[in-house]
């Protein structure tokens, strides 16, 4: 059994989702290679080299591959697989992996298993269905297993190794005619939601976008990322990419603080792997309290300034 990891990166650095995927792979076999596709990706390679569990890193570094266009990545992966056999091909179930991995599976005529949260054995996995309201244990009958891995369910691997890197050339592999127009990156000095240790999120109870300033001071003191419920995003209080939940970002911080969030099923589905959940809501019947380790029934406009001062 041999596993290949498809690396998510932006040429400058490796996304943390990759390190979680490596940990998932280490539970399947101890022969793990990684494939990085990009352009001018030296610094990302230098980072990845430190990953524990990896046998070897293959690097395709080619002009035209600077952005993760699924067609291009898939073409190169398929050509790479012509000379390299793997029993398992793993990608993170980030938007990168969700976009790309089914293409690889289809080219191999394999049924991908999406978003696995645990590994029972080399062909049996658990994955959430119905927005996490049920967990399916499924077995792949395909010879090659193509999987996407939910990063928040696996700790990132250690970074104390020095892995061999082999550059592979695919000069003749087709680069597709999809053109990359650009990325409107969400800029923030705060940690990313999906990798933050602490997250503080606001919901409809915040009443407007300005009131999210009340969370900022607390986020500063806790070194926290800031998030929001779908209701707050739909109401236009904060940008789309703040949304936490089944249809937004799935998070698993050490501490999740929910402020003015009632606790809709789809929000709970995105936060229930958090180690601790604390919630503040003025409605004592709010469903969020059923999922919280600590609940405080209070008016958030009184409580937030006090919380900020006392932290």
């Amino acid at each position, binding site marked *: 059994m041999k596993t290949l990891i498809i690396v998510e990166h932006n040429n400058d650095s490796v996304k943390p989702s990759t390190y979680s995927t490596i940990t998932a792979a280490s539970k399947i076999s101890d022969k793990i290679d990684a494939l990085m596709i990009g352009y001018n990706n030296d610094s990302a390679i230098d980072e990845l080299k430190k990953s524990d569990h990896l046998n070897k890193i293959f690097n395709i570094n080619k002009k035209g591959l600077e952005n993760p266009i699924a067609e291009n990545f898939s073409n190169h992966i398929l050509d790479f697989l012509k000379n390299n056999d793997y029993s398992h091909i793993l990608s993170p179930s980030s*938007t990168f992996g969700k976009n790309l991995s089914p293409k690889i599976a289809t080219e191999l005529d394999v049924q991908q298993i999406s978003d696995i949260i645990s590994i029972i054995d080399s062909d049996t996995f658990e994955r959430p269905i119905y927005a996490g309201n*049920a967990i399916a244990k499924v077995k792949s009958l395909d010879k090659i297993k193509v999987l996407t891995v939910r990063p928040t369910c696996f700790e990132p691997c250690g970074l104390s190794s020095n892995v061999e890197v082999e550059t592979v050339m695919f000069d003749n592999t087709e680069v597709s005619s999809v053109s990359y127009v650009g990325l*409107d990156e969400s800029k923030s000095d705060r940690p990313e939601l999906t990798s933050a240790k602490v997250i503080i999120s606001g919901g409809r109870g915040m009443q407007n976008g300005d009131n999210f300033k009340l969370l900022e001071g607390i986020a500063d003191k806790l070194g926290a990322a800031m998030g929001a419920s779908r209701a707050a995003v739909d109401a236009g209080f904060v940008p789309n990419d703040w949304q936490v939940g089944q249809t937004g970002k799935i998070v698993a911080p050490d501490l999740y603080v929910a402020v003015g969030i009632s606790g809709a099923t789809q929000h709970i589905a995105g936060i229930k792997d958090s180690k601790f959940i604390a919630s503040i809501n003025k409605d004592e019947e709010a469903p969020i*309290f059923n*999922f919280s380790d600590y609940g405080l029934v209070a008016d958030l406009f009184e409580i937030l300034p006090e919380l900020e001062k006392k932290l």
Partner: protein
Amino acid sequence: MKALVCVKRVIDYNVKIRVKMDKSGVETDNVKMSMNPFDEIAVEEAVKMKESGIINEIIILSIGADTSQETIRTGLAMGGDRGILIKTDGQDLDPLNIGKIIKVVSEKENPDLIILGKQAIDDDCNQTGQILATLLNCHQATFASKVEVNSDKSINVTREVDGGLETIKVSLPCVITTDLRLNEPRYASLPNIMKAKQKKIETLDVNDLSIKLDKRVQTIEVNDPPSRKPGVMVNDVDSLIEKLRNEAKVI
């Protein structure tokens, strides 16, 4: 231009699902069923494009038992022109099989645009659009939050990715999968619901398509998710901070 919109009949998103006692799946008897919400967004986008003159025909396709006709009718009431039902005996088909079925329909109908939801809210696979684009060897634009057709018939699609909003330019024919914020699906008006009853739905038996349908993933069991330990209520900010600091040790 012609659009093919693929819709799936799923348990309504407001229904609290129940896992069956024998762990074979979730209870679907006497449960309200609806069109997958992401597919509703796909129908809406096609209808908007028809209203702005970009598209002149919308075909609504569903794969499933006879009951999936209702889901197609919903799409027709929203503005679809005609429907196609690929009839199965209601068994669960893996996304790869679904992709192969849609490919057959697509090769017959030759749509310029195939639009479908990014995922179904039952199996949460998020694969069908990508599989289909690969089988048809055409461009894919997944997780769309904005679709703009250019004068040269290429399409700029803004995609919701983890780091922000990514825009790519694809050419026709292509597959677009819809994300939540692409649009707000309309409610069908009563006159349109009545009109939809007159629209044609062609029914084909899946066994007549000469596709080998095989199950590659076996569901061993379905369980309830692990429940969280019940928590405690605190009375004030001081005790909240105390608990977080000394009991949970997370701040």
